[in-house]
């Protein structure tokens, strides 16, 4: 089932047309890696597809409904977004912050229940922060803060998850753990789009790889068909792709 469907999506910021008519479908049970050079429009696409960014044209359907017909709360119950910058300002505790992910599902005044607390705790454990509940988010390292933002999105328990460079501040072990986590969410039938720069993580974990360059989407028919030429064309530099003894492929930028 297609969870998120983007048609003819255009975004113009100032005088620049950042996205020039994007068509994209996200079915459940898939992790889609979104790659592209700086300024290619990855964050703009994530924001517009998730209903938090500006849209100059085109439509976004979430679970069959036009996103413009849904309230903000309804949208936040269907799609969760992990932003590139966590931007924590106030000294909320880690637990309080993750519980904010439960607000869209809770009523305005409804007390957060034990279920909510358990969901938040489970989300924290998924990102290896189970013991961080009482710490203040303003005291965390960049990588810890990024994992809190991921946990907050997980606590929303949405069918669609959009992540904007979620592992940019994470050490290799935690980055791998996040992608294994995305894999298990996929197995639960969720749809995941993750913007990132690490081509090797994409090659290893993504079901589909889509490239964005100058506001236009390019998707090879299969991730197996991503080769040195494709990477060179997207990133304007030389690449070497090697197949490892494990069968995985690894990409190295040469220049």
């Amino acid at each position: 089932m297609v969870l998120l469907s983007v048609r003819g999506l255009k975004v113009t910021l100032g005088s620049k047309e950042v996205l020039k008519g994007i068509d994209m479908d996200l079915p459940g049970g898939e992790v889609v890696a979104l790659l592209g050079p700086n300024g290619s429009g990855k964050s703009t696409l994530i924001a517009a597809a998730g209903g938090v960014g500006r849209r100059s044209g085109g439509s976004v359907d979430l679970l069959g409904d036009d996103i413009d017909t849904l309230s903000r709360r309804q949208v936040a119950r269907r799609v969760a977004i992990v932003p590139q910058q966590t931007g924590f300002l106030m000294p909320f505790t880690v637990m309080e912050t993750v519980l904010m992910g439960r607000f869209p599902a809770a009523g305005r005044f409804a007390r957060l229940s034990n279920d909510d607390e358990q969901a938040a705790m489970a989300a924290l454990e998924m990102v290896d922060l189970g013991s961080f509940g009482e710490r203040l988010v303003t005291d965390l390292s960049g990588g810890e803060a990024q994992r809190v933002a991921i946990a907050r999105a997980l606590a929303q328990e949405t069918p669609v998850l959009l992540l904007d460079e979620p592992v940019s501040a994470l050490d290799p072990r935690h980055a791998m753990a996040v992608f294994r986590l995305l894999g298990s969410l996929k197995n639960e039938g969720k749809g995941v789009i993750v913007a990132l720069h690490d081509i090797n993580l994409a090659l290893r974990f993504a079901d589909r790889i889509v490239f964005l360059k100058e506001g236009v989407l390019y998707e090879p028919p299969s991730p197996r068909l991503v080769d040195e030429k494709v990477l060179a064309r997207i990133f304007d530099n030389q690449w070497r792709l090697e197949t490892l003894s494990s069968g995985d492929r690894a990409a190295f930028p040469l220049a």
Partner: protein
Amino acid sequence: MPPRGPFRFWILALSASLGAALLWVISIGEVRIPPGDVIDVIFGNISRIDPRSVIVLSIRLPRALAASAVGAVLAGSGVVFQGVLLNPLAEPYTLGVATGAAFGASLAITLHLPFISPFAFGGGVGALGLVWILGHGGRESSSSTRLILAGVIVGSVLGAGITLIKALAGDQVGVIVLWLLGSFSLASWGDVGWSMASALLVLLLGLFWARDMDVISSGANPRSLGVDDRKAVGLLLFGCSLATAIAVSISGIIGFVGLVVPHLVRLVSGPSHGRLVPLSVLGGALLLLLSDTAARSFGELPVGVITALIGGPIFCFLLWRGR
């Protein structure tokens, strides 16, 4: 959210202190009236023509209630402004309400008009409208920086206007200066009604949008967590500015309450608005009630001087602690 600090304890402690302070404040003065008698007057057990009844019901009770309600408005609005403008220095006067009200009042005083409060209210609301239009600049939504900047600009221009009026006011200048410094000495039951309604408005707005303010102030993209930030911020800022305009038209400009109380309360409540709003409303009421009593005891000093004298050092302490 998990409780941080004993929220119930602070609610009870502040409510009890406010109640006790009200009784004490009403009982002291040139004529001492024992707290027991004050209670008897309020419950109608003492004749309405007894001098004690006249003093309590016509002078001290309305003054005490108006001071408490205005304190509640200022502190509650301060929480809201700091929360949604993402600026720790924001206060109820940030969007030009106070200078607008001061301008209106100064105009009414120099022109010898019999009613100052309606002019002050009109000036406050007019300035707010101007800031709102400037801050939005023809767009649908506005950034907090633009709004704050518009507030500064409108405030400076109106401030110059006030200076001009003072220069031309002749012997009225003393009246203008006293009004600007704020006082509750002439509070009526009508003032009590208006200020109580404003306080209620601030409390209800703050509680209704507490979770939205948590999300906004946390630094998250509010929309990704289901918060309609345009609607929430607009309603909160407009509602609290309106309440502040009413408060200012009753009491004049009283500084520091809206700035200091929220910062003090955060020390015990944490940043969660469900706790911050009610505690600040109580704290602001208590602080302004006691400040007004001090002002009264020192021979009717302007209450704005007292709050500045109390608030200044507290703010220095908070700054020094690095909050």
